[in-house]
């Protein structure tokens, strides 16, 4: 019945992606920008810092990172292939022209329209796409919108301020909360952590900053929406979230970019710090432009995300739904330092056409009775390569620690690849590590059952894939879960129908 498999491949493999039907976020916004010419040296780093009127300590911090970066070789270990990146051919700063808007009313209407079109309305009454107004109880979401190198708007700032929550752009935080930034920036992901983190530390332009004070439950979901617009520009945002003792925050991140024939680099760093009894839930729906059906263009998404459970009983939970980018290379990780702290990683990564994903997590158990859970669902179609790479490490102090890992791969068609590279390391007898991985395909029998009941094959595949991802979608906030399921369906849409 291999004929059948081919039919399946036709369904999801050969895309009309080239015509862009399935990448609705692929448009370009025409707007005047203030863009640095391509190239990178110490002067460029200084220029970025100067544009943001940063204090001297910040400039020095960046220069130190830049010098370290220059010493580092480009990493090669991931299961991905791409031509060498010309770091001198990239522009490291691009921002809409004019002074930074002080309130939403001052934001360029063209930008507001861009976010509207993306389903991220920036006026404060609105909600995230996918949530109908009929539900009055729907939670409100505060949005920080990052356009190329800068944050263009942050909503609901006043309401959040009443609760004592700081939610602003990174640039603003450096000016307004230097003590917090100096204390925590680079404390989770040190400057020389890896090649792309070092680069980010030198040239990061903006990003979001969150501080939730002691014993405070953040009154709404926080979200950042990243948009790459300018051509030939890298996006290097930096996000820092600190949940003080007993605090709770749920943070959502979304991303898109226009369709362009060239590859664009996105090298972000995200740092999370959870103090005693604090909890941070970080959800990502990543839909950067994946490139066309022939593998031209798309974003290189090389991101370092790491959280540290500093305090006892703290918890950090990462959920990601990755459907975009030509290449994804990221491992949202947790350092479990506090006793009884908890780390979680839930991931869905879908690749098709010529996409490549090498993603997973690192759970480092340092404190006693720390617990981690990893659930990874990889779906490969077309000629894509999809790898899970993870490391679970039980350090000598992690008495009674536990990890459970489940990695499942689903293959659609016979020209793609699905890979699993887990590193499991234990140095003490009282820790327990369990890892399981399976590989399956959408079976002909499942498809036939659906068809026999009247469901067309394209819908059936989407439904089966959704079912396969259920354990992960369950962990997303409601409105994001709906969006994620839709995104998956759109991504699986093929030539039929």
């Amino acid at each position: 019945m291999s004929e059948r498999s081919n039919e399946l491949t036709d369904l999801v493999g050969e895309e009309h992606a080239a015509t862009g039907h399935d990448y609705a976020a692929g448009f370009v916004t025409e707007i005047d920008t203030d863009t640095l010419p391509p190239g990178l040296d110490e002067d460029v780093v200084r220029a970025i810092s100067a544009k943001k009127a940063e204090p001297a300590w910040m400039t020095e911090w960046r220069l130190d990172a830049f010098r370290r970066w220059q010493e580092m070789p480009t990493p090669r270990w991931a299961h991905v292939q791409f031509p060498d990146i010309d770091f001198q051919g990239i522009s490291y700063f691009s921002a809409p022209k004019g002074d930074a808007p002080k309130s939403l009313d001052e934001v360029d209407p063209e930008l507001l329209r861009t976010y509207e079109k993306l389903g991220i309305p920036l006026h404060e009454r609105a909600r995230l796409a996918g949530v109908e107004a009929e539900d009055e109880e729907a939670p409100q979401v505060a949005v920080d919108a990052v356009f190329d190198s800068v944050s263009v708007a942050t909503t609901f700032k006043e309401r959040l301020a009443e609760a004592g929550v700081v939610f602003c752009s990174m640039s603003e935080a450096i000016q307004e909360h230097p003590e917090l930034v100096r204390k925590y920036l680079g404390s989770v992901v040190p400057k020389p952590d890896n090649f792309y983190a070092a680069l980010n530390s030198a040239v990061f332009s903006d990003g979001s900053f969150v501080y939730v004070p002691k014993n405070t439950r953040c009154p709404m979901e926080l979200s950042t929406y990243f948009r790459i617009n300018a051509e030939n520009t890298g996006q290097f945002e930096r996000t820092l979230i600190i949940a003080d003792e007993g605090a709770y925050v749920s943070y959502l991140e979304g991303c898109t970019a226009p369709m362009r024939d060239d590859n664009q680099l996105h090298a972000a760093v995200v740092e999370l710090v959870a103090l005693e009894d604090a909890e941070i839930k970080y959800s990502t729906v990543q839909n950067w432009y994946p490139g066309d059906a022939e593998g031209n263009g798309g974003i290189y998404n090389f991101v370092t995300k790491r959280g540290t459970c500093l305090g006892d009983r703290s918890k950090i939970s990462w959920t990601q739904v990755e459907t975009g980018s030509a290449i994804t290379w990221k491992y949202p990780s947790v350092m479990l330092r506090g006793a009884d702290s908890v780390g979680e990683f839930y991931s869905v990564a879908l690749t098709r056409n010529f996409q490549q994903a090498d993603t997973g997590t690192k759970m480092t158990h340092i404190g006693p009775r720390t617990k981690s859970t990893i659930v990874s669902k990889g779906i490969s179609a077309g000629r894509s390569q999809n790898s899970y790479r993870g490391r679970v490490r039980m350090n000598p102090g992690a008495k009674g620690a536990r990890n459970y890992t489940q990695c499942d791969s689903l293959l659609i068609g016979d020209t793609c690849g699905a890979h699993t590279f887990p590193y499991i390391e234990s140095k003490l007898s009282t820790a327990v590590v369990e890892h399981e991985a399976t590989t399956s395909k959408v079976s002909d029998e499942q498809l036939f059952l659906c068809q026999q009941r009247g469901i067309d094959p394209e819908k059936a595949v989407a439904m089966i894939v959704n079912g396969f991802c259920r354990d992960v979608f369950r962990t997303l906030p409601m409105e994001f879960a709906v969006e994620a399921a839709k995104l998956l369906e759109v991504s699986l849409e093929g030539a039929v129908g």
Partner: protein
Amino acid sequence: MAGLALNGASLAEKLLARGPTSYAPWLDRRPHLDLIEQRALPELRAEAWRHTNIARWYETVLAGTERATRSRRVEFPGEVEVVDFADPRAAELLVLRGEEIFRLDAQPIAALNGMLLGSGVAIRVPAGTVPSPVRIVDLPAAYQRILVIVEPDARVELIEEPSSYTHRLVEAVVQPGGRLLHRRLQAASPDRECSLVAVRVQANAHYELSQLSLGGDLRRNDIVATLAGNAANVTLRGAWRLVESQHLDNQVAVHHDAPGGTSRQTFRGVADGRSRAVLNGRIEIAPGAQQSDATLNTKNLLASDTAEVYAKPELEIYANDVKCSHGATIGAIDEDAVHYFRTRGIDAPTARSLFVRGFLREAIDDVETARRLGVIQ
């Protein structure tokens, strides 16, 4: 840690000055020398050597302090053809083997075996025969090579029980319909030793490995099994028990290159004292190897807080109509189970050793031998 700066490049330099051995002069050593000349020996931090300090093995190679027995003990029945590797007939058998079974650039330290080879045997099991077991106990050199050709529909058991080597290469081809049961008995050893087992399994042929290991000062086993023909079958079993500061590193790769193959891997290990156990188990399904069915299961017991276990089960899959899975666990002796034994009147040490034995037995098919070797008590 003096002397550990020795790396692949500096070793190569010194060895090339020394030159190859004169044993089995018919053997084409060019590929081995080329690799060494190109400085392609593993460096200290190479991914495949993350948990085994190869510099310690290089030291042994360089110092010329390899320990080797003088004696040669190989037992085999009359139907089986066994010749010394130095014999020109071995060259003919190498031709019968067919194409290379493993890629030298993927197993670079085997180049040292080629260069420094001092003893070896070539074995042919004629088509359709079912002889009694072939036992290879000792070969009189530090660098050893064993070639096994199991001809169509032949069936044989090969037992390796060496007392000492620095590098041993075992190559086997199991031709269509043939069967090779390969027992490797690795006693505790004060030496630093590396071995490579490379097997090609042709259509409808079976290869079964049963490896029982105690630790060594440095013991490294690379195992590469390729299912090259339709409906080939590979079963790998490994059990180990490490104490004190023993070290065991098993690097296993199973390549499904043809459709309809089945592979089963089961590993069970116990690490006590300050020992270190490593298992890297890789399953690779090539494009077109549809209907492959592959599983790997490894379970580890950490019996002390100073021992270390590293497990890395990997899947690399390029075909969709396949069934693949792996599972890996690391944990302690189940004290609930020990308690249960004790309520039945069994003292704690006995209970623990019963538990360990039961645990290891899942990867042991010959309890008597395992007991004789001391893998179980």
